[in-house]
C-alpha cells in the first residue's frame, strides 16, 4: 500500500485507509510504518532518497509491511499532529525525516513505548527512539579531490543553506580533498540562510561564477537549481543527496549519493522481530550509506585512480578525511599530525579549515 496524499490535510483520510488496510490483511499481520518527509519527494533530493528507503523496505519485506507516507510536512505543530495521528492509528514504526521533528517525536515516543521511531539527523536517543545520519564528509572529501583537479582558477564556489555543524563539516572535507591534490585551491561560500529558495540558490551560483569560481559545490539543495545553472554557465558542479547527472550531463563532476535502504530495512526487520533498539547510526561508505556517483569522464585516468583510491581507503577504514595536521582559518592547529577527529567532534564542528575564504557567520 503506497500512498502519497496530496497534502497534509489528507492525513485524516489516510488514517481511515490505514485502519481498513490493516484489518483487511489481518492474516499476514503486517507492521505499519509511517513516514514523514519535510519536502515533497520529487525526482531527486533529500525526500526522494528517504522515499527510496521506503521503497526498499517494501521490496525487501513485501507483505510484512504497509507504508503510510505524508510529504511536505513543515516542522512544528503540523508535524506533531501528523505523527500523533499515525501513532493513534496503529503505526508500529515512524520514520521522521527532518531534524526539526525531533522534540515532538521524542514526546510521542515517551507516550507510546510500543511504537519505535527512527529520526534523521538528530541526537536524542531512547529505547524506542533511534537516530540516523550519514558520513557525507567522506564523499565530500573524494569529490573535493576531483574538484581540486579540474579547477583552473583554484576558486571553488559553494552554495550552502545554514552554517550548521553538518554543513561546516562538508565544506571542510571538500576543501581538504581539493587541497590534498591541489594545494593552491581555495573555496568560498554563499550562505542562503534558508533551507529552500531555488531562485536565490541559482543567483548565488551565478554570483560565484561571475566572481571566478569554476567549480560549484551545491550543498543540500533539494532541487537541481544550482546544478542546472552550472550546466548553463559551463562550469563543473558537485551536488549532495541524489545523482543529478541528468540535469547537468556535461558538467556534473560528481554526485554525493546517500542511500538509506539497508538501514531502513534493518530497522523495519527489527520491529518485526521485536528486537528494536534505540541507537545512533552514523552511516558511511563502509555501510553503503554514502557513495560518489557519476564521477566525470573529464578526469584523466590517473586522477580518477586517485579519487577511487581515496574512496577505497575510506571504505576499508585505512584513511579518515579529518586526519591531522588540520589547521583552521586563523592558522591555529586544530588536529595534531596523525590524529583524527572523533565522531563527536565531527558532528559539532564549528570552525573552517585553512583555504576556505569565507568566515563563519556568528
Amino acid at each position, binding site marked *: 500500500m503506497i500512498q502519497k496524499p*496530496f497534502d497534509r490535510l489528507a492525513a485524516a483520510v489516510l488514517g481511515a485507509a490505514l485502519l481498513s488496510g490493516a484489518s483487511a490483511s489481518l492474516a499476514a499481520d503486517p507492521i505499519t510504518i509511517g513516514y514523514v518527509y519535510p519536502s515533497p519527494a520529487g525526482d531527486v533530493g533529500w525526500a526522494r532518497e528517504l522515499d527510496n528507503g521506503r521503497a526498499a523496505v517494501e521490496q525487501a519485506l513485501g507483505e510484512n509491511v504497509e507504508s503510510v507516507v505524508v510529504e511536505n510536512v513543515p516542522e512544528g505543530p503540523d508535524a506533531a499532529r501528523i505523527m500523533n495521528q499515525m501513532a493513534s492509528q496503529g503505526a508500529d514504526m515512524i520514520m521522521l525525516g527532518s531534524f526539526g521533528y525531533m522534540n515532538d517525536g521524542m514526546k510521542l515516543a515517551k507516550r507510546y513505548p510500543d511504537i519505535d521511531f527512527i529520526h534523521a539527523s538528530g541526537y536524542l536517543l531512547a529505547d524506542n527512539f533511534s537516530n540516523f545520519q550519514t558520513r557525507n564528509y567522506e564523499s565530500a572529501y573524494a569529490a573535493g579531490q576531483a574538484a581540486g583537479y579540474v579547477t583552473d582558477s583554484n576558486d571553488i564556489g559553494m552554495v550552502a543553506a545554514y552554517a550548521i555543524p553538518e554543513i561546516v563539516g562538508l565544506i571542510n572535507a571538500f576543501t581538504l580533498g581539493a587541497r590534498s591534490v591541489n594545494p593552491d585551491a581555495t573555496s568560498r561560500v554563499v550562505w542562503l540562510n534558508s533551507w529552500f529558495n531555488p531562485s536565490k540558490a541559482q*543567483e548565488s551560483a551565478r554570483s560565484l561564477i561571475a566572481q571566478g569560481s569554476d567549480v560549484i559545490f551545491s550543498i543540500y539543495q533539494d532541487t537541481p537549481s544550482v546544478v542546472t545553472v552550472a550546466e548553463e554557465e559551463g562550469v563543473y558542479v558537485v551536488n549532495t543527496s541524489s545523482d543529478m547527472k541528468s540535469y547537468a550531463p556535461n558538467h556534473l563532476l560528481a554526485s554525493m549519493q546517500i542511500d538509506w535502504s539497508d538501514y531502513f530495512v534493518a530497522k523495519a526487520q527489527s520491529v518485526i522481530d521485536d528486537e528494536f533498539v534505540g541507537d545512533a547510526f552514523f552511516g558511511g561508505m563502509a555501510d553503503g550509506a554514502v557513495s560518489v556517483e557519476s564521477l566525470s569522464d573529464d578526469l584523466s585516468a590517473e586522477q580518477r585512480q586517485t579519487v577511487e583510491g581515496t574512496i577505497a581507503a575510506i571504505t576499508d577504514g585505512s584513511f579518515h578525511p579529518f586526519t591531522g595536521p588540520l589547521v583552521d582559518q586563523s592558522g591555529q592547529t586544530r588536529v595534531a599530525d596523525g590524529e583524527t577527529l572523533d565522531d563527536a567532534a565531527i558532528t559539532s564542528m564549528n570552525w573552517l579549515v585553512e583555504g576556505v575564504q*569565507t568566515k563563519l557567520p556568528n
Partner: protein
Amino acid sequence: MIDLLAFLLAGTLAAATPLLFAAMGEVVVEKSGVLNLGIEGLMASGAAAAFVVVASGGSVGAALSIAALAGLVLSCVFAALVLVCLAHQVAAGLAVGILGLGASVQIGKAFEGRTIAPIARIDLGALSELPVIGRAFFGQTPTVYAGLVAVALVWWFLNRSRAGLVVRAVGESPSAADAIGYPVALIRFAAIAFGGVMAGLGGACLTLAYTPLWADGLIAGRGWIVVALVVFGAWRPGRILLGAWLFGAVSLLELALQGVGFAIPSQLLSALPYLVTIAVLALISRDPRRLRLDQPVSLGKTHVPRA
C-alpha cells in the same frame, strides 16, 4: 570585477521582471479602488501552470496563455467575493491567495523538482557581446523586454487614456462614478481580471525564464513584495519600475558581497532587501500629503451599488 558588474546588471533586470508584471496588474487593480492581497497565490498558480505546460511538451505561447488563464480564474473568484458578495477585500484577498498557493501545489504535484530549458535569450550578435552592458541590455529573455513594455503601456493607460481616467475615477470615488452612470462593479471587475492575468504572467516569467524549475514554494514571498512595491512606487508605474530594480539589485548585491567575503554577517545581508524596503517606505511616508495625493481615496473600501 567586470564579470561581477555584468552579473549584477543583468541579474537585476531579470530578477525584477516577474515582480514588474504582477505589480503592473496590481497597480491597475488598486487604482480602481480594490486591494487584492492574493497576488502570491495568483503568481504561484500561474507559475505552476506555465511550468506544467512546457514540461509536458507544450509551447511557450501555450504556457503563457494557460498561466494567464490560471490567474484570470482565481481573480474571478476574488472578484465574485468582493464585487458580488461584497466581502471584505483584505480577507477575500488573503483567502484567494491561500487558495492559489494550494492550487499551485496541486497543479505542480507530478512535476516537483523537475527542470525545463529556459526561454532562449535574444542574441543580437556583437551588441549582446558588449562588456558589462551586453548581456544586461541586449541579451535577456524576451520576457524582460515585455515587462518594460508593460510598464510603458500601463503608464499610458492610467495617465493618458480615457479608460484609465474612468478607472481612476472609480478608485477615487465609486459613488460619484456610479452617480454619473459608470458601471462601477463592471469596471472594477475588468481591473481585477487584468490584475489576475498579469500576476499569472509574472509567475510564468519566474518558471519559464528566471528559475526554470518547479518546486512547491518557489514564489517565496514575491507576491508580498509586489504589494509593497505598489505602495513603495506611490501607485506610479515609473516609480514601481525603479522599486523593482532596487529590490532586484539589493537582493543580488547580498549574494555578491558574501562571495567577495565582506565582513558583514550573512544573516544581516539576507535581510538587506527587506531593510531597504522598510527604509524607503519610511522615507517616502515622511510627506504624508504627497502619499495621499497618489493613493486612491477609496482603496480597500467596499462600494455598495445604488439600489
